[in-house]
């Protein structure tokens, strides 16, 4: 038995689209194997085939050398493979105990809740998950829910776990804790397949890596000694170029302040924050998940209302907690969760991108479709949005392109102040560059930008980074920092 899990020559079609075209993966027992590729490379399809949610059209899947069980035999699948999906499979209205034993609360007959809770506590203790078995999962944080999913997955006795972008919604310390846990599992001999857009994580936690591109398998290598550049070019298919290292541009901020907040406080989130952004300047906001950086940025754009303090956009004092007033004053923003606040999935690219300027596209409340289309075409070209045309619904676009539409909406009215929150979450390398480039271009046109990000690499484009710790701005770090320095401040190691 050489491989713990093997997929050979797998073909999967969805109508006319080929999601996997003779792709495969082979994972040795006890290793943590990364699967990387750009959006649409076929990673998610492979996950659903390896977990038995879909059957491949051609090819075979082997577990420890034996053919995969029938699709209907869920129990057999769950003993072989466990998966922490990208989308949470925790049901918020149910308790922790019930989520752990979903659909296996009892063998036959009525459920004995007391026993179920006891069993749940056992599982939680075994996998060292520190949550109350009787808590509603809806009240848990992202990290705890994820740990719950891992514990549930392992409690079926599977020795192979798939982790599909587990770090996408976690902050720095939570990611470290997850990795510590993964290492412990590996020492116990658990085999893992790890999917992530963050190549640093691949280098940190995995032993080998498989690259998929355009539904095909490109290469499988040990991670140790595999150059970062080569990995990136295998993903993008562009040898020779180094798209990963984004060259940020030099610029001199002008004197005019375009966005400022004075003595802003929000109970439990941040206290007494002063921030001012000049025209032609990118100011980064960094900090851990509990630092209050996202809430602060949301206050600047009016999504939240501060308990005290004022926000001034372009010289106008905006009404607290009022997005339209901020937009009128000349602000554009990219919200944290694009699915939630970023776009309307059923509406077209053109409509989504032009919502803030609808009043300028026609008279007396009408919207001229021709002008809207023209404007949208320009945005599509500027931002390199990959779409069939301005009429395509945004819901059909890939993550990176949908995010570009959100950017288009933020930039459509040539804002003088731009607030961008976690713009590169869940987008691939190339889209990430286009998005950061869009921020820089807006700033070159004279805007001032605030960039909130969990990604240190994103913050490289900033002229200075304000580091927040427990609701306070603790340091104003000028350009030229090293990762180590910045992380140390974010973790509150040095004041």
């Amino acid at each position, binding site marked *: 038995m050489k491989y713990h899990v093997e997929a050979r020559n797998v073909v999967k079609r969805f109508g006319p689209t080929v999601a996997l075209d003779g792709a495969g993966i082979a994972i040795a027992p006890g290793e943590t194997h990364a699967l990387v590729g750009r959006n649409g490379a076929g990673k998610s399809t492979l996950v659903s085939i390896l977990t038995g*949610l879909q059957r491949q059209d051609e090819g075979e899947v082997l577990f420890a050398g034996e053919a995969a069980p029938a699709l209907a035999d*869920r*129990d057999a699948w*769950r003993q072989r493979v466990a998966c922490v*999906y990208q*989308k*949470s*499979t*925790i*049901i*918020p*209205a*149910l308790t922790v105990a*019930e989520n752990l034993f*979903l*659909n*296996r*609360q*009892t063998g036959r007959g*009525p*459920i004995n*809740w007391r026993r179920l809770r006891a069993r749940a*506590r056992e599982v*939680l*203790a075994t996998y060292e998950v*520190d949550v*109350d*078995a*009787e*808590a*509603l999962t809806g009240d848990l944080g992202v990290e705890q829910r994820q740990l719950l999913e891992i514990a549930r997955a392992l409690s079926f006795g599977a020795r192979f776990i798939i982790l599909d972008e587990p770090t996408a919604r976690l902050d720095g310390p939570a990611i470290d804790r997850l990795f510590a846990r993964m290492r412990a599992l590996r020492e116990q001999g658990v085999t893992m397949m790890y999917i992530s857009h963050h190549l640093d994580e691949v280098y940190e936690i995995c032993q080998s890596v498989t690259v998929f591109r355009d539904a095909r398998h490109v290469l499988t290598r040990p991670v140790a000694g595999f150059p970062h550049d080569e990995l990136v070019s295998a993903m993008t298919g562009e040898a020779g170029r180094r798209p990963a290292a984004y060259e940020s541009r030099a610029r001199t901020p002008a004197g005019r302040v375009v966005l400022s907040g004075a003595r802003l406080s929000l109970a439990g989130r941040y206290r007494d924050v002063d921030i001012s952004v000049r025209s032609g300047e990118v100011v980064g906001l960094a900090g851990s998940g509990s630092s209050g950086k996202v809430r602060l940025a949301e206050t600047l754009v009016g999504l939240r209302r501060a308990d005290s303090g004022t926000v001034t956009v372009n010289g106008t004092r905006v009404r607290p907690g009022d997005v339209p007033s901020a937009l009128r004053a000349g602000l554009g923003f990219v919200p944290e969760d694009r699915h939630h606040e970023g776009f309307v999935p059923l509406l077209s690219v053109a409509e989504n991108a032009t919502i803030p300027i609808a009043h300028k596209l026609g008279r007396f409340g009408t919207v001229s479709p021709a002008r809207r289309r023209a404007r949208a075409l320009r945005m599509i070209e500027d931002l390199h949005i990959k779409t069939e045309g301005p009429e395509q619904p945004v819901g059909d676009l890939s993550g990176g392109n949908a995010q570009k539409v959100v950017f288009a909406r933020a930039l459509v009215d040539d804002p003088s102040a731009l607030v961008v929150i976690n713009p590169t979450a869940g987008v691939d390398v190339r889209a990430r560059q286009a998005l950061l480039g869009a921020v820089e271009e807006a700033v070159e046109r004279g805007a001032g930008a605030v960039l909130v990000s969990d990604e240190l690499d994103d913050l490289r484009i900033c002229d200075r980074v304000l580091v927040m710790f427990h609701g306070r701005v603790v340091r104003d770090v000028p350009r030229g920092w090293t990762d180590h320095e910045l992380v140390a401040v974010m973790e509150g190691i040095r004041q």
Partner: protein
Amino acid sequence: MTTLTAPTPRVRLARFRDLTLVPVIVILLVVGAFLDPIFLTPGNLTNVLQQQASISLLVLAEALILISGKFDLSLESTVGMAPAIAVMLVVPASAGGFGIGLPGALVIPFCLLVGAAIGAFNGFLIIKFQLSAFIVTLAMLIIVHGLQLGPTEGKTLFQLPDSILYLGSAVWLGLPAAVWIAGALFAAGIAGLAYFRVGRSMYAIGGNTDAARAAGIRVDRVLWGVFILGGTLAALAGVLETGRLGAIGSNQGVGWIFMVFAAAVIGGVSMDGGKGTILGALTGVLVIGLVQNLLTLKGVSGFWQPVVYGGIILIALMISRIAGGKAQD
């Protein structure tokens, strides 16, 4: 693990969440007692329960369907149509029947079968054909009512077999049989949803269908079963109503569905699925029943009663919103 030792308060709180309407019921009883001396007598309260027995079965059915994340408007039409068709199968043509002359003892099984068939057809369109539950059951609401009006030509059926009248009119141990039946079914519903895998799987499906499927729940089968059960309960509600009134009018059940939804929702059942309990739905029915009774006793004009019902629904919603704390969906 020491961190897991203090979980009890949480459970109590969760249990109270189902009972946010209990104070409302208490207030209604107290206010009612002051307003009218007859109100708080056993006879009157029994009367309230009997009047609510059949609509409560509809609330039970709707709560099950809503918790599973679906929707059924057609239940109210089944209340009139199922017993009407069942009766027409057994009574002679002179009494408005089809003249087939099947045995009268079979009228209740026929009725339940018709209800189950309507539920199964709804389920087929919604689950297998993947149509929107709202529109499918809206169409079925119209069609099923039409299937009562067509054969009866809009006439009321008076000559009914004794078997269909029995359940709605009999008295067992001092309480109407209908109340016992509704009580037993609610008890079964409460236990089924709290203590059995199939009941829990309904919460899972309503809460997150994909997660339920990934956990190995046979989502389609459970949903189909819920629709069939819902149709059957609606038919049984029709039997009880027929027995109570002694005839089947052409508008039996018409307009009930609004009250049914109101009762379920003020009782804490979420329109988005996955949330709520049968006990909560029961308190919703009781609130509406008590208000109805109080209005009738005080002689409030039937033309003005809808305003009061609507107002009560809104007030109950506000109370449960304040008690529950979270924004409603």
